[in-house]
């Protein structure tokens, strides 16, 4: 859906989505890195389980909710990626203990 422009010379950051390694760039938000990965990163809503992708990318819509390093319901668009970060695509509501 999105590609990286050749303007982008930032260093690579390796992170994991449901266990699979993806290459992000330093300064990416989690949500941007996921969209750039080309993987199916659709979450499922807590209410009906409908599939969603990020909508506003500015902290407003909460459609980028994702589990980051074991913590659920994080706004992926507001969190910068870090080396080795573990992402789980959140299916439904946040689980107890996450």
């Amino acid at each position, binding site marked *: 859906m999105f590609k990286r422009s050749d303007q982008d010379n930032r260093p690579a950051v390796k992170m994991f989505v449901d266990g699979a390694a993806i290459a992000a760039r330093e300064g990416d938000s989690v949500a941007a890195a996921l969209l750039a990965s080309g993987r199916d990163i659709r979450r499922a809503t807590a*209410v009906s389980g409908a599939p969603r992708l990020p909508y506003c990318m500015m902290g407003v819509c909460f459609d980028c909710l994702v589990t980051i390093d074991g913590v659920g319901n994080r706004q992926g668009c507001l969190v910068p990626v870090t080396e080795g970060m573990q992402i789980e695509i959140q299916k439904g509501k946040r689980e107890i203990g996450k």
Partner: protein
Amino acid sequence: MTTMPKRDSYDVVVIGAGPAGLAAAATTAEAGLSTLVLDENVGPGGQVWRAITSTPVVARDRLGADYWAGAELVQELRASGAEIIQQATVWSLDRHLEIAISAGGASAFVKARRVILATGALERPFPIPGWTLPGVMTAGAAQTMLKSSALVPDAPTVIAGQGPLLWLLAAQILRLGGRIDCILDTTERRNYLAALPHALGFVTSPYFTKGLAMMREVKAKVRVVSGVSELAALGDSQLASVSYVSRGRRETIPAELLLLHQGVVPNVNLAMSAGIEHRWDDRQLCWSPVLDPDGNTSVAGIAIAGDGAGIGGASVAVARGRIAARGAVEVLAPDAAAALTAENVLRTTLAQAERGRAFLDVLFRPAPQFRIPSGDTVVCRCEEVTAKDILDAVAIGATGPNQLKAYRRTGMGPCQGRLCGLTVTELMAQARGKSPEEIGYYRLRAPVKPITLAELASVPKTEADVKAVARQ
């Protein structure tokens, strides 16, 4: 990594580091007032200057001169001595000017003698059929990805809506080698006539030549369909196509990405939760705070600057930020006010920056069918409530947005009404034959962003706090 405020009280706390916040904080800090800037994003700049200190898009002509203007103001703020905390979410502000901040999973509290709210704008809801489908995003979302990560669309892409940002985004995507298959322009034809009386202010404003040049740049490369009066995103669990009506003819085009935009509106959540009086703005079709010429609100000590005070754009925001800051300096350090830019100069700058806005407001006033949906179109994205659900609730007695919460939970999800509030007000107003002002808005309360119970529980407590709730 997480930074918390160094002190527990400040002369001035500025909330938001976009154009208005940067200008306000630099001004108060330069005048010697202890100044704290709190901002939710990773770096300063707000939305219009997003990633100004870190963007990978280094070739200056790609994002344009108006973008790079922000770098100077960030320099000014950094040299001013103001304390700046990024990735800090303000979740409460009250009449005593006490501010609750969440950063890195923990909360802290600070007190201010003056607060300048510069929380900016958010995109107006665009509730068309299918707007919750994966692959439908706001134009602002695409621009955020472009500025902060140099990411551009490379799948079949449709941009739909109206307003200056739409053309700017299209130009930026094209300059970076991205893909746009079609632009669907929803500007109503009658708006051109209605905007005519404001045309003089517009043609003498910088918007005019810049806007025309940008539209020419885009139209040379992308098919533009004007007069679009209906719009729907289609697909099963993923956007597959966009259907539209133009001049009475329905067309469907395949698309994997649909970028929607019909202007921006003030981000009112924090201001309203602090009890600041707002009014319905009939021209901009949104809630705006009631302000005096210095930006002071109905709550003593709190001023609002920037697009949160009513949409004006970046230059207006900078001018309003300086004016609000000057007001704070005059009260807290009158001797330092003499060294600031004179008030009449600031007012002239503001008046110049405001030129052309009335024309844009009228020309790009979104059509009723794109603001007030019907049938199965989702209104509240969080709780997945449709227009029909809301009309059914009105039919059995829901009188306004706050009663509606009890019927359908609208506005009670994590976004707290940011993406449904205006739609709910206008939809209920239409259904009940009342004005938006009469129907009102959600009663907003802290926390204005969700925080965990664990974070609340770990907030420092006094003995009196514990006694107030503990069983004897």
